């Protein structure tokens, strides 16, 4: 029996089922217990083993002979001590919203009072002839990383299809391992989806300085094969680039099928309201799979709905989902931030660059530091930095506190984000 308006069962919330045991799902489970929840927590993940972090998989994990255990988010003891029932290597096949029950591939079922969908995303396939060849490498999971690390050992030349964050991180890692690397990016600059032109230019230059062959406006028309093996790629211009290892990183597709089949609204992700609830108030969606309205802290003229693929988003939405299960739902309003490590560059972004109307960049040659201020609607909306963590952290605080320097202040040559913020705080 439950109150029809809110769906809160008599006796409160007793069972929470979390679909997806990645960063977002794990955070929800941890935060529920931390928040004093005494009921059952079932964390279901289709990958075997303990929940783990993905960021190291394109970086440190590929460079050293790190053990899979080194990327685990928590050790096995944690799940036992926190009484979190981890069902690894298990897939949820359907949601029965009427019965408030999910069906499992192994044949069982789990009842829920609250359901959290943290199903993440999967790699988009290469939509060209040969694009599904088993020889092609990709990187999303621990299994992908282990396999790729092995192949990298013997590779002489790697072609990376896709000049986004994943492709570039892998390119940098492989180059540092002494492999010859060619990156083929279809757009006319790298990271075109999210980075400012100034950031794209700088990153491209650093890659080239390190000997990466960066091919821009180089879409792939087909995968080259011979004798059943992948031998390279064919560009749209008709050029064949030979390689003994080809990896594609052309973005992801959110895993919305389970939600869609259950009649929940989807559209570039599982659609949620500001409190992270789907069209069914007992079901939340968070992390890489969730489509939500850009948080108010991101400034004026918000870019509509967003779907953010980042550790910050997974962690903060996991915490928010737990909070909204345990108490009166509050709107989600956390400053998005993101980082990417490529060669000596520590690229950091705070805020949303989408819809940016004006960009001001500052290059400090002595310290090899770049800062790009992005304005939208007359206010600072985002800051991209390379090797400038002080400015990055200041921007996160500034956005969180709804502050903004004026455009004219930022345009002045001596402007320092960090100093401006310290002045505002009266330090």
């Amino acid at each position: 029996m439950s109150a029809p308006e809110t769906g809160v069962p008599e006796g409160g919330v007793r069972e929470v089922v979390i679909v997806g045991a990645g960063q977002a799902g794990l955070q929800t489970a941890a935060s529920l217990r931390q928040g004093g929840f005494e009921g059952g927590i079932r964390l279901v993940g289709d990958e075997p083993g303990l929940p783990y972090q993905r960021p190291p998989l394109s970086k440190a994990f590929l460079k050293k002979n790190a053990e899979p255990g080194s990327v685990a988010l928590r050790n096995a003891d944690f799940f036992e001590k926190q009484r979190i029932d981890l069902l690894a290597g298990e897939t949820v096949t359907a949601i029965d919203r009427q019965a408030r029950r999910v069906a499992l591939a192994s044949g069982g079922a789990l009842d829920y009072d609250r359901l959290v969908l943290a199903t993440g995303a999967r790699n988009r396939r290469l939509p060209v002839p040969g694009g599904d060849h088993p020889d092609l490498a990709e990187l999303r999971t621990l299994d992908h990383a282990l396999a790729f690390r092995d192949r990298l050992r013997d590779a002489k030349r790697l072609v990376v299809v896709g000049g986004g964050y994943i492709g570039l991180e892998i390119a940098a890692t492989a180059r540092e391992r002494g492999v010859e690397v060619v990156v083929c990016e279809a757009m006319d600059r790298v990271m075109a989806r999210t980075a400012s032109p100034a950031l794209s230019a700088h990153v491209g230059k650093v890659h080239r300085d390190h000997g990466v062959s960066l091919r821009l406006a180089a879409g792939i028309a087909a995968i080259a094969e011979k004798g059943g093996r992948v031998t390279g790629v064919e560009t749209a211009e008709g050029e064949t680039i030979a390689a003994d290892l080809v990896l594609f990183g052309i973005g992801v597709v959110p895993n919305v099928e389970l939600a869609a089949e259950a009649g929940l609204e989807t559209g570039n992700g599982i659609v949620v309201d500001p409190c992270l609830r789907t069209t069914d108030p007992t079901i939340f969606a968070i992390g890489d799979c969730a489509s939500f309205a850009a948080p108010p802290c991101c400034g004026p003229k918000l870019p509509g709905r967003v779907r953010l693929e980042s550790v910050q988003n997974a962690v903060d939405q996991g915490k928010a989902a737990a909070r909204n299960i345990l108490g009166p739902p509050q709107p989600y309003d956390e400053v998005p931030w993101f980082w990417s490590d490529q060669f000596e560059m520590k690229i950091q972004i705070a805020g949303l660059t989408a819809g940016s109307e004006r960009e001001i960049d500052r290059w400090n040659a002595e310290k090899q530091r770049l800062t790009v201020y992005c304005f939208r609607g007359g206010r600072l909306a985002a800051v991209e930095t390379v090797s400038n963590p002080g400015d990055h952290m200041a921007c996160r605080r500034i956005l969180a506190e709804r502050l903004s320097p004026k455009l004219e202040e930022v345009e002045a040559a001596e402007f320092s984000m960090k100093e401006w913020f310290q002045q505002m705080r009266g330090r």
Partner: protein
Amino acid sequence: MVKVTYRAHDGSETVVEANAGTSLMQTAIANGIDGIVGECGGSAMCATCHVYVPEDWLQRLPPRSEVEDEMLDSAVAERKGNSRLSCQIVAAPEIDGIVVEMPEEQI
């Protein structure tokens, strides 16, 4: 294995064995130690793995990188001369027995 003692703000201590090569932040998270958060997973991006290192151990650690130094300014708890980011301290035989003190707040 490297012995590490995590001293909480209230003085209580937890002693764990760390695998050489893993950071003190990772070790804390893996062992469920409450006083270290590590939101960014060890990339010197969040300053939520802040610790104070007693002087005699501090001297035995490699110096802070510029990134670590800058990030420490953003730590929530007071930055002191012996502040370090535990994600940048790698467990190694040379620091077997190290003690680190956790601040009252990380976030």
